């Protein structure tokens, strides 16, 4: 186990190194000059060159990347070109909002997805099952920005139940979490359904039934705990989906998270911020996947850690 973990962590580090290299290279190729953004329109060519030198942007790619990497290893993500704050500070100030949104989304996924899957499995083959599965397909096929705008229109503009946007109270959280979670809810309901159907076929469930246990007791006492595990094990993987989703969801709802930070930075080639957010996201994705893989064998003995 420890050897496995060590190997996976080394792999993870190499992956992050690759991500940083590719992102850095892409930003290097970007047909835009960050120095012009910093120097402003009144700058003389002399000032521009001086700023370029100070930021080391006159150096060859390899030198720039190496410098970034060494700073990174000492925990320094650099300073934003435009905002002039430490990137780590900017990310830390916005990460809680994004994490909160993700927690909300995971709750929505689990509550909606699991209950849909459970009901569908129990009512297998009925019209309810069919309707729920169509619902889950809609969940995975709906573009997040459309879902967000639709929820805003119905529940905030027309019904006035929730605020139209912003950040602060639990009421602000509902619509963005739902928007971000709806995709996952679609997947979860389908996984939950098949997992539940598998479990219901197992011998011990049949035994429990044969012993005359009530349907409810069988479902919630025996089947559900077993069915739910493989589904919940996938949460780690969700993080990858979320990292893409937050850019859109945060922009629709004006949510002050790292998605908005990244989006604004891309508009103005604020390279340190783009690098920082990409690396933080990649870290989250890699760790999420690792978590999912570590949890898997505990839940399904057929899977071995490789």
């Amino acid at each position: 186990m420890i050897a496995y973990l060590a190997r996976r962590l080394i792999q993870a580090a190499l992956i992050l190194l690759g991500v940083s290299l590719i992102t850095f290279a892409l930003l290097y190729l970007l047909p835009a000059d960050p120095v012009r953004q910093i120097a402003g329109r009144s700058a003389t060519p002399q000032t521009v060159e001086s700023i370029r030198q100070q930021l080391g942007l006159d150096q060859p790619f390899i030198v720039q990347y190496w410098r970034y990497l060494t700073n990174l290893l000492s925990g320094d993500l650099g300073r934003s070109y435009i905002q002039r704050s430490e990137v780590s500070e900017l990310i830390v100030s916005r990460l809680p909002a994004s994490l909160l949104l993700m927690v909300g989304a995971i709750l929505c996924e689990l509550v909606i997805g699991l209950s849909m899957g459970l009901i569908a499995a129990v009512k297998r083959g009925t019209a309810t099952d069919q309707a729920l599965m169509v619902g889950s397909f809609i969940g995975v096929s709906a573009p997040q920005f459309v879902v967000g705008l639709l929820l805003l229109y119905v529940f905030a503009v027309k019904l006035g139940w929730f605020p139209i946007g912003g950040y602060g109270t639990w009421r602000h959280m509902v619509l963005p979490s739902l928007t971000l979670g709806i995709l996952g809810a679609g997947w979860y309901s389908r996984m939950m359904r098949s997992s539940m159907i598998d479990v219901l076929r197992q011998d011990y469930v049949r035994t429990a039934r044969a012993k005359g246990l009530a349907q409810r007791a069988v479902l919630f006492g025996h089947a559900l705990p077993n069915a739910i595990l493989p589904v919940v094990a996938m949460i780690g993987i969700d993080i990858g989906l979320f990292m893409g989703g937050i850019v859109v969801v945060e922009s629709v709802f004006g949510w002050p998270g790292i998605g908005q930070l990244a989006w604004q930075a891309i508009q103005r080639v604020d390279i340190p911020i783009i690098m920082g957010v990409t690396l933080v996201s990649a870290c989250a994705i890699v760790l999420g996947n690792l978590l999912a893989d570590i949890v898997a064998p505990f839940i399904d003995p057929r899977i071995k850690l490789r």
Partner: protein
Amino acid sequence: MTSPIAPEIPAIAPPARPRAGVWSRLAKRPLALTGLVIIAVTVAGALLAPYLTGYDPNEQLFDGLTLEGAPLPPSATFWLGTDLLGRDLLTRILHGARTSLIIGIVANGAALLIGTLVGITAGYFRGYIGAALMRFTDLMMAFPALLLAICLAAVFQPSLWIVAMVIALVNWVQTARIIFTETSSLAEREFIDAERTIGASTGRILFRHILPHLLPTIIVWGTLGISTTVLLEATLSYLGIGVQPPTASWGNIIFENQTYFQAAPWLVFFPGAAILALALAFNLVGDALRDILDPTQRGRA
């Protein structure tokens, strides 16, 4: 690492099975049939777009806006109303279907091609090349896909084909992983060994034996992938970095009009419904294909 779409459980290579009758089996499933109908309607709408309405998709009509510059609601003249530039919304949605379908087919085709090539190469040859390729796909999996697409779109200034390429570059990874898993389990099987011992060329083994076994998977992933592609194109266009105006795309219709969505929600909801319907259709068909072509994967969404 695994994907939420197909938990990485070593697949048992399916035996070759007849593909005849796939269509009729699809047609027997109400959901798949619904999907096929939606796709057919979209294709027809896209092809016949110039003949279905009397308007040009890019013509900013003189009487298409109120005096204050507000868009017109649906009416007998403009069935779905007009957009913020006074263009007929229905016409733009029909032409937007072209964009979605072209990107869906081209981008997804390219992603499928890259993914299959990488997957087969890594799965069959193994060794250093295989390991390197799979580590590279691991690396790509660690990218937040949308951020990567946004960066790529900023580097290669967008056009329809560039958007397709960007999407392909982001979307091939899933396919590569699935194909890799299947190919590597196929490559270990006895009949492939037998072929090798009788001196069959690598090309023959790949094309005569491996590829046909992979075909069902490729078809399933190809269909499901269109759905992902349509959604990603819409998202990029919604962020203003997709296809260039005035080319209509369902995503950029919403991008251009969303400031008005409270006053004129139809400007967002008609194109939104179109995106949802098309993505849903390919998902429904893809899911049914998976059930029909690959019983081992049945029920695993």
